[in-house]
């Protein structure tokens, strides 16, 4: 068939591409806009004229803004960080991480790059531009009003770093535990093929559709009184589970479990069973075959499932807001509290800055793992 017969007429192509551009605008605009808002003084951020929001005259009048030099240098730093982490970093990680510990090497490298970026961008850059700006005349004058004071308020004064730490604990816990438990179960379910395995999967599907608030209603009284009913087992120092991150991790892992085992099962079904059968013929037990033969080839599926577990734990509001008390709250409930407390417009912009801080890691995550996320979304659906 010639391409000509399937070629589309120009109006259709234009229509299609216009719609695509329109969709991209809708998809990205709210996130872009709150990012812009978070850098402005309250007067500018809630101005009804969009140009005022972008250029921020009131913020500039307050004496904080970015000159052309600032922006160029800032973009250069961002560009070189991106280049470094896509070009040079993989080689460095390969060379310096001990054999078999590549994952650890990547984590260390990511942390180093992150810390380095923060130091250069927020520490060194202001000093350099502070020297350069007065020297360069018109180029050094502020063009766009922008201020980072709201981020300072959020992270330093409002103790958001503490919430960030809690979020980190909860998400790290959920991802590790749910992957460990889930890979074993997913492998077992994929290789068993018995009726029991089928029913377990169906029940898991039913569990997935339950509203989370139902489950939390079940935990609350038990968790609050746990010191009482745990004392026969644990003695005097039985903990009250309410407000403990560990309890929340367990709950989130369980809520996530149906999804995890479904997804991992579909990944394991794609690994040919001949592989572990060959290992079994050579005299391996099931566990040994799993450890030596399956583990080296399962990482793509595990990484994808891990991403989705991360998203669930990171984005959760219902469970964390009900089961954690104020002292160890995670980021999302904390910002909802901030948002509900806001009275002045300054408070609102501070809440916007907090929202952007929560979104930034997710943005990076999509950038790095786009392929895995797409494959994870389609894996379950296309193969049925």
């Amino acid at each position: 068939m010639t391409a000509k017969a399937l070629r589309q007429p120009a109006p259709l192509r234009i229509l299609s591409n216009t719609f695509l551009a329109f969709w991209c605008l809708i998809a990205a605009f709210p996130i872009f806009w709150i990012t812009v808002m978070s850098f402005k003084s309250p007067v500018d951020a809630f101005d009804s004229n969009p140009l005022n929001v972008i250029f921020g005259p009131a913020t500039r009048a307050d004496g904080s803004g970015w000159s052309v030099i600032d922006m160029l240098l800032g973009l250069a730093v961002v560009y070189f960080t991106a280049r470094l982490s896509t070009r040079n970093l993989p080689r460095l990680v390969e060379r310096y991480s001990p054999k078999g510990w590549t994952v650890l090497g990547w984590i260390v490298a990511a942390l180093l790059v992150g810390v380095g970026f923060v130091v250069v961008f927020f520490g060194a850059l202001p000093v350099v531009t502070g020297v350069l700006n007065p020297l360069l005349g018109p180029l050094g004058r502020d063009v766009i009003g922008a201020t980072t004071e709201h981020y300072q308020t959020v992270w330093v004064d409002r103790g958001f770093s503490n919430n960030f730490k809690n979020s980190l604990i909860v998400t790290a816990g959920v991802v590790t535990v749910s992957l460990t438990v889930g890979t074993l179960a997913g492998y077992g379910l994929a290789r068993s093929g018995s009726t029991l395995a089928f029913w377990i999967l169906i029940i898991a599907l039913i569990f997935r559709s339950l509203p989370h608030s139902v489950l939390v209603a079940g935990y609350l009284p038990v968790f609050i009184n746990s010191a009482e009913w745990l004392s026969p087992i644990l003695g005097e120092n039985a903990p009250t589970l309410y407000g403990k991150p560990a309890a929340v991790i367990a709950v989130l892992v369980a809520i996530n479990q149906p999804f995890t085992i479904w997804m991992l099962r579909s990944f394991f079904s794609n690994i040919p069973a001949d592989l572990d059968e060959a290992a079994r013929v050579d005299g391996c037990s099931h566990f040994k075959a799993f450890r030596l033969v399956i583990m080296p080839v399962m990482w793509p599926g595990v990484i994808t499932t891990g991403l989705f577990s991360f998203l669930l734990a990171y984005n959760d509001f219902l469970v964390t807001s009900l089961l954690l008390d104020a002292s160890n709250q995670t980021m999302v409930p904390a910002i909802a509290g901030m948002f509900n407390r806001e009275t002045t417009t300054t408070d609102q912009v501070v809440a916007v800055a907090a929202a952007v801080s929560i979104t930034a890691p997710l943005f990076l995550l999509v950038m790095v793992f786009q392929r895995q996320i797409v494959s994870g979304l389609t894996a379950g659906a296309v193969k049925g």
Partner: protein
Amino acid sequence: MKFKTFAAFVGPSIFLMLLFIAFPLISVFWQSFNVTQPLYEQIEVENCTPGFLTQTCETEIQTRPILDENGDIITRTDFVGLQSYRNVLEMERFWTAVKDWSWSGIQSIDFWKALRFTLMFTLVTLPMVVGFGLAIALVINNAAKMIRGPVIFLSLLPFIITPVIGALSINWLFRGDGILTALLEWWLARDLALFAQAWTIELMMMFYRVWHVAPFAAIIFYAGLQTVNQDSLESAVIDGANRWQRLRLIIVPHLMPLIIFVAMIHLMDTYRVFEEVVGFRSQGYVISLQWLTYDFLTPNEAGIRSISRASASAC
């Protein structure tokens, strides 16, 4: 695989699900028939205030919770049958309202209000998510290969963002004289107050939900479009089918399993609609079923969580 090995592999996962999903379900079911209340006793208290010549003394009957030897309040759990359900459903008020044909009467009861919103939200967003998802998938598939990657990246953003934050960011665009409200006012040439009545808030919530879920549908449909049989498309062209007929008779039937999959997932998720109510701070106007449960679970002014009512509404 022997049963024993299978059990060893699957065991931990099953244990977690039983402990944290099946057990709470049973416990919620049980709690919904019981009410735990502090025990109260009535005592006579004599209050004396110093006065001239004689003290003025008053005796009054006070109700106070009974304390045990540790100073804790003694509570008692009673079996109340369906009472909690009655408290939540408020059937008498419901039937009176139905008899009077008064819609606002039904809407003044929290449960029915929440049910109405949840159902309507589900029914309205479902066709929109499927429709928009399909449209986006088609245009991505139609676009040049080079720009597909960046477009998919942008499309993933609304899907991956924290739901509460996503709802908030839409909220901020409209709040007060936010940029989009200003645009609408300029376009319609009239003053708008989008947060002053229920239906505009509902519209915004639906807009948010479609924005949030359409990318998910689009990516799944896009993957499905890659597997459409080119031969049947070509023979359709030879048979003289136009574009619309090809879409309707070949592509959509091919995607049908995926459309059903997306619809199922969407039904499950919108039934538990919750984050929008938090993000749009709409509890004064619009509430959903899951939010109702959440509200029963948060301590009220007296610090009491009405767990049994929550259980009843959840079941």
